């Protein structure tokens, strides 16, 4: 791997190697720029380092403590924040539905929330490119959304027990289902500059780390590509400071490595650290916040789950956890709320299940042991829906420090009326589906998944942190690329869109870069 000197002012420093950072690292390196990626975690070797054990795999989770406040405090760490090269893609289920064109115009359509400064059409070529590059497995033609230019490169993966039960429950209700699109290989796949990746063997362990490379986390896709083109991936570097010169531009980035401070000089910085760490870094440095919007509008998709026990043997640990989808509820006709949601089936690993069971139902003692004895007969279904941006949901710095001596972030989150109505609508439908499928002893887990917002993009410098190209309105050589710049939460899982926006930000940056060079 290429290595640069700290004093060498590289063309770009990218902070974070997840879905927002990795595509930029690869794109800029391919264009011949000198690129250094700073990653807080390690570069794992999944075959050697990853065990099929949820407790052990907590090492791939961002475990620096965050303080969760509000009426619906968000559990951070597992399920929303990864640690290591690959970022949160290490722990994502690789569910990659495309957003719908109207996901970008929620304010125009409903008078609430915020429109995006870019459209589905702006991102469409990147969705095409990503599905091909990552090796997305899914049904062609896809029944929802606009017609595609190209189909999915691979057929869908086999569906697991929970998905088969959801099919049984949906059919009589005329709810259309198909095997979900996942960035998980249903057949071996050759990727240029990456090599041969093996097909998924249905370990079902996507959320705790894929050990085979079948799941398209960025550490097995964009990062090898970036290294091939000469990028340096510098690991275990925790960025603490963005240093500015007399003209107010970023001149260097300071980070902690093995307890020592080091500083990398650079011409441009891309912060891609996710919806908590990105605003935290800007707030700590008091930068790029003339709009006052840094840390504001924190969102988390409505993701209520219903779990049930079935007569059938389900073995919920096998197969891709979320392997069936319905987008029929994207804009429900009888809705008393704005926007909508998708439905997905879910399998589950035992520790995740036990933990959710305890927190959601309070079961303990004999009752808990009996409930857990039925684990092999358990299947889940959940919604994934819009969460509107609110003033009362935000990230701030607390006065309590973490082990690095940095202020812990405090995150306020409370669902509003729209989220509560959407959740109630989804619950009714999920209960009907599970009832038809034969579920017994059901219980509900009210939750919000995915962390979004906090550095929104927009056209107006007084209302947004960055413009439609991800560039800070205040500091011309500072960019943001991750889930923090989403103006609205979308109805679909965010990762594919994070990557598409990242590629667009990279291309727009490179256009400006080559113009300024000529």
């Amino acid at each position, binding site marked *: 791997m290429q290595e640069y000197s700290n004093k060498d002012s590289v063309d770009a420093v990218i902070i974070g190697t997840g879905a927002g950072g990795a595509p930029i690292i690869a794109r800029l390196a391919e264009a011949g720029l000198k690129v250094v990626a700073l990653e807080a975690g390690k570069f794992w070797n999944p075959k050697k380092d990853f065990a099929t054990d949820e407790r052990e795999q907590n090492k791939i989770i961002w475990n620096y403590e965050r303080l969760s406040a509000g009426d619906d405090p968000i559990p951070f760490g597992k399920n929303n924040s990864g640690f290591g090269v690959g970022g949160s893609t290490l722990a994502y289920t690789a569910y990659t539905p495309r957003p719908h064109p109207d996901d970008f115009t929620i304010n125009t359509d409903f008078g609430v929330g915020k429109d995006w400064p870019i459209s589905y059409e702006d991102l469409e070529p990147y969705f095409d490119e990503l599905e091909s590059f990552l090796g997305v497995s899914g049904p062609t033609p896809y029944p929802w959304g606009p017609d595609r230019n190209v189909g999915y490169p691979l057929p869908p993966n086999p569906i697991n027990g929970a998905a088969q039960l959801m099919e049984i429950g949906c059919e009589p209700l005329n709810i259309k289902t198909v095997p979900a699109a996942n960035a998980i290989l249903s057949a071996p796949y050759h990727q240029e500059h990456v090599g041969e990746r093996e097909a998924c063997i249905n370990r079902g362990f996507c959320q705790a780390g894929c050990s085979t490379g079948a799941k398209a986390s960025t550490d097995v896709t964009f990062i090898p590509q970036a290294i091939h083109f000469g990028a340096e991936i510098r690991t275990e570097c925790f960025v603490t400071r963005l240093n500015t010169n007399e003209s107010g531009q970023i001149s260097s980035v300071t980070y902690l490595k093995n307890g020592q401070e080091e500083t990398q000089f650079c011409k441009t910085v891309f912060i891609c650290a996710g919806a908590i760490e990105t605003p935290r870094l800007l707030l700590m440095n008091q930068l790029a916040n003339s709009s006052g919007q840094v840390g504001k509008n924190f969102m988390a998709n409505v993701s209520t789950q219903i779990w049930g026990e079935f007569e059938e043997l389900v073995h919920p640990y*096998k197969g891709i956890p979320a392997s069936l989808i319905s987008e029929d509820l994207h804009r429900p006709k009888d809705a008393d709320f704005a926007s909508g949601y998708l439905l997905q089936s879910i399998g589950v690993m035992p520790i995740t299940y036990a933990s959710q069971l305890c927190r959601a139902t309070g079961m303990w003692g004999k009752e808990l042991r009996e409930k857990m004895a039925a684990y092999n007969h358990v299947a889940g279904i959940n919604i994934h829906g819009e969460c509107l941006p609110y003033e009362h949901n935000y990230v701030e710095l607390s006065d309590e420090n973490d082990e690095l001596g940095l202020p812990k972030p405090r995150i306020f989150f409370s669902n509003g009326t729209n989220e509560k109505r959407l959740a109630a609508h989804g619950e009714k439908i999920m209960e009907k589906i599970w009832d038809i499928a034969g579920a017994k002893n059901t219980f509900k887990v009210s939750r919000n998944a995915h962390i979004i917002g906090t550095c929104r993009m927009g056209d107006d410098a007084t209302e947004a942190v960055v413009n439609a190209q991800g560039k800070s309105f205040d500091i011309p050589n500072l960019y943001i690329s991750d889930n923090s710049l989403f103006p609205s939460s979308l109805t679909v899982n965010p990762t594919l869109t994070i990557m598409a926006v990242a590629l667009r930000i990279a291309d727009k940056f490179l256009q400006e870069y080559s113009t300024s060079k000529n």
Partner: protein
Amino acid sequence: MDNKTHQNQPEVNALLNSEFLTEPTRKVLQERFEKVGTNRFFDDASFSLLSVVCDLLMDQDSENRMVNSAYAIDERLLHDKSDGWRYDSMPPDPVMYQLGLNGIKETASQLFDKKFIDLHKEQQIEILNAVQSGKVKDGIWKNLDSKIFFEELLAETAEIFFSHPTVQVSINYVGMADAKGWTKLKLNQSENLEN
């Protein structure tokens, strides 16, 4: 962890030594047996109390215990390791655990004028139910939300308990034996390893 041999030990050993586990998985699960804990964060009295509470939460008889989650809790608190978040309304985990256990001691002495560990099981369960439902309000509980303390304690105890291979095999979970992957995904279909 306790090193007692449980009745399903031969079955667990056979599984852990089989070709169906990857080496990293085998290593992690075997270490879980080998680790003999000592309490270094809690004093002996608090540790005994925590052990009894964990047994009640996981419905174990202390004479025939599969896992004592208290050891792993003690080790985590000793190193002040976080799992990525905590309720903003609660003090840091090491403080919360000390306060919560002291709260249980206080409640036992108020209600039954005895040490918690010397009470009958029914009385112990009554106290834990009161903590879980927020019915305890005096003393320490004035400043510590007993419902949230209970939720945190229960979730952590369960996560540790159900991570032990002995417990996992007892609920017929064999997901760790995935070195060759799974091919039978249809409902009611089982691989050779599965019950």
